[in-house]
């Protein structure tokens, strides 16, 4: 079966439409979404309505949570003071325009979705705010996949798509307990994968195109998709709606509006 996994749409309706057509062309059987439907972009309500009308199973992203719970992102999740100020502006704008029923829907989104040996999260199984970067320690990455008892972990949040294969992991453990002597065990794991779906509406790979992934559950093959769309329409809408024009400038260059945090292991204490 072919799954399409999308993430981080951020109120970019044009990009979502283009990706949905591309998914049609690829003849995917099911679509999953990893959250961050809203925030930064000019069409939060339309994006949520589209996701709902297609009944796409969706896990909650940090922006969705913030719109429900009030601004909750810890300061440390912003890489700079400037990014934080811009994040706050975007939050306030979104908070004002969002429809009550959209807010209610966002509140119902689960933190994780599971399907057989696949798990779908926004950031990581620990937190919507944790970044699983490709440079993260391999064993730490493996722990994230195993903590949800999965073989494949789908995540987003970093806005740059990648596939990471973790193979032939061997972990030796030796335990000494007073009165119980010593024992040794060895853990070997089959191939595990982390698949980052990139970002539909706020790409950060240096080009304005939308990104998402197609996964074949039979062959375990992954395809990273990059879909051009008319980003200028979104840029115009950003300016028309009174969002900061710098958002449009960054979108056109494939630079995320608020850049990623540098510390991949950072977990918000909240």
């Amino acid at each position, binding site marked *: 079966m072919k799954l399409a996994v999308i993430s981080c749409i951020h109120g970019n309706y044009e990009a979502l439409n283009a990706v949905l057509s591309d998914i049609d062309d690829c003849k995917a059987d099911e679509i999953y979404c990893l959250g961050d439907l809203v925030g930064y972009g000019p069409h939060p309500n339309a994006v949520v309505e589209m996701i709902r009308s297609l009944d796409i199973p969706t896990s909650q992203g940090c922006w969705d949570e913030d719109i429900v719970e009030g601004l909750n992102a810890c300061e440390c999740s912003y890489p700079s003071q400037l990014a934080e100020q811009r994040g706050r502006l975007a939050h306030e704008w979104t908070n004002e325009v969002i429809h009550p029923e959209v807010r209610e829907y966002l509140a119902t989104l689960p933190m994780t979705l599971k399907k057989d040996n696949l798990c779908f999260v926004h950031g990581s199984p620990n937190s919507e705010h944790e970044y699983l970067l490709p440079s993260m320690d391999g*064993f730490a990455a493996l722990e994230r996949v195993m903590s949800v008892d999965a073989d494949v972990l789908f995540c987003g949040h970093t806005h740059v798509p990648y596939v990471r294969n*973790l193979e032939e992991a061997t*972990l030796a453990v*030796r335990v000494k307990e007073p009165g119980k002597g010593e024992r040794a065990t060895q853990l070997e794991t089959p191939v595990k994968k982390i698949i980052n779906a990139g970002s539909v509406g706020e790409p950060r790979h240096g080009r304005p195109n939308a990104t998402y992934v197609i996964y074949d559950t039979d062959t375990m093959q*992954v395809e990273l998709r*990059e879909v051009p769309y008319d980003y200028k329409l979104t840029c115009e809408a950003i300016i028309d709606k009174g969002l900061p024009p710098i958002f449009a400038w960054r979108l056109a260059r494939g630079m995320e509006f608020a850049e990623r945090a540098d510390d991949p292991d950072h977990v918000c204490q909240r």
Partner: protein
Amino acid sequence: MRWAILSGIEGNLPAYEAVLEDIKRQREKVDELFVIGDSVGLQGDNEATIKRLRAPKPGELNPQVCIGWWEEQCFCLHGLSGLPDAPELVAKHGVEGAEALWKSVSRESVAWMRSCHFGFFESGCLLIHGSTMGYADELTPETPAIQLCDRLIRADANALFCGRSGRTFECWVTPEKLRSTVTTLDEVQEPKEQGKTPRRVVGVGSVGHEPGQASYALYDSVGDEVTFRTVAYGRSKGFG
């Protein structure tokens, strides 16, 4: 350098006194005393214990104290962090337990506990009540190996000394082998082998939780060696 690492006094002052005596009796002098959380609890006199920790007698080591699970529960009850009705505490010890804790710790003592560290990082060792994941993270020898490995990576330490489980154990974790291959939109990166040297998680026992029997750990930072001590005290000690 020799360190004594204690956790879980839980207000049991006689147990703490017995451990201090045991430390004094060590043939090789102990240079540092770490108390890694749960100094208060429901096992005795919290105020007397805090007083004892804050004012060591002449010639005694000055204990370096950090925050544990019970301290966090006090912060909840005083509305300083977490949820004000301390749901974790109520789930474990009932409303009566929460009341008893509330009554047994003064506001001034809570303020002092707030000034304590979350943990200590010394000579490549992290000393912390739970783990860097949080004060409630309970590591035991039964914790999945990959999880122990992850906690060591997060701690960025060769040894992680913790006290949440109250058990004494040494768990060596060796991430022997892992092949990681990353594919991005623009490239397939060369596979990386990610083997590492052994590191360990050490449970330092509990001073005050089990009546009559206190356990703690001694660590020789030069020889990188851990010794566990069990000290009998009070009535269960002998003939009473």
